[in-house]
């Protein structure tokens, strides 16, 4: 299994270097919408979708920027594209699938400021992935985000039944849980190490 094979890229992005628990991308939605499993699931779906769209557009844009030798505009054009991609996805979904649109609700516009999305676009550029690799990478990152979000939501729902000291309720408790999850995910590090 070579380090740049598609399966390895997927596994690496989803589990070994999980975007939330190992690379600290997308912490805000991770803390914000992980209270319930349904919302976490919907948020995860929305993120996977937007990640795919923005990854594909970022690939095209980067090719164009390199072609005209204006790479210093990369950050500005990426963020502009992501913001408009989110808007576009929102409008398309509203037209063609109102059910899904209602399910995702407020989460769609919030995705613009999710650093995991911009992170995917920046990493695929700096690692010089091909088109197919970029798509697989963004898919893996989205799946990894959803896994982390669902695990967290499950834990937090269980925690509602436990008696927690009032001082540590809320953000502090969530951080400790995230730390434990992150510790558990470090166990996967061996999967990636042999490939550097």
């Amino acid at each position, binding site marked *: 299994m070579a380090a740049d094979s598609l399966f390895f890229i997927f596994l690496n992005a989803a589990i070994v270097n999980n975007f939330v628990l190992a690379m600290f991308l997308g912490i805000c939605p991770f803390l914000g919408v992980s209270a319930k499993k349904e919302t976490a699931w919907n948020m995860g779906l929305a993120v996977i979708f937007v990640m795919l769209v923005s990854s594909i557009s970022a690939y095209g844009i980067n090719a164009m920027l390199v072609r005209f030798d204006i790479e210093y505009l990369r950050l500005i054009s990426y963020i502009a594209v992501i913001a408009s991609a989110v808007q576009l996805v929102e409008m398309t979904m509203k037209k063609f699938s109102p059910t899904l649109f209602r399910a995702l609700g407020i989460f769609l516009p919030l995705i613009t400021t999710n650093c995991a999305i911009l992170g995917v676009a920046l990493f695929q550029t700096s690692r010089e992935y091909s088109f197919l690799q970029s798509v697989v990478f963004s898919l893996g990152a989205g799946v990894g985000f959803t896994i982390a979000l669902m695990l967290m939501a499950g834990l937090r729902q269980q925690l509602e039944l436990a008696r927690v000291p*009032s001082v540590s309720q809320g953000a502090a408790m969530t951080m400790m849980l995230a730390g434990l999850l992150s510790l558990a995910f470090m166990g996967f590090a061996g999967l990636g190490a042999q490939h550097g």
Partner: protein
Amino acid sequence: MPRLPNETEPVTLDTFLRGLWQENPVFVMLLGMCPVLAVTNSAINALAMGLASTFVLVMSNSLVSLMRNFIPKQVRIATYIIIIATFVTMVDYTIQAISLELYNALGAFIQLIVVNCMILGRAEAYASKQPLWPTIINGLGIGAGFTFALLCLGVVREILGAGQLFGIDLFGDSFQPWVVMILPPGGFFVLGAWLLIFAWFRERKQRLSKLQEVTQHGG
């Protein structure tokens, strides 16, 4: 303290101090968590990240404040993001020119300042309604609060995880570093611990003020 949305406020010392303590972006408002966790494995990285974010915050909010009467309401968020991205690109290239080592340590997180919700939040909630001078002071305060929070984490993680502070050895050879502290889980644990301390302070203050009220009414 609630303010009317379009009221311009006088510049006082409080404009600055509020960002440092009462409205601390990290410990109180829980904004901009990604860089807080990711780049605080050493104190020097934390300091550099804090200063870079403060620069972007102050400069972009000043520009937003100066242009606040010209930006159409419908496209304001997009405009803010473009303004922020411009300054982030400047910071990105400057750090790359000054210290390549630091640039590699911070990685993609310099560019990810763009999506730091703290900066966009300030632009939307404060800079778009206030004149230039209060915006600069408030931006400096929030930036200082952010840098303070980053240092809180960076110092603890570096001392425990590497036995050093700003690269200087603190303990003898016998010190066994807690490697987990500079790895990802350590970031979550240390931030959780700091949040716990802050929550404890707040709860104690509330309890004390309630106690005071009771005794006053009783007397």
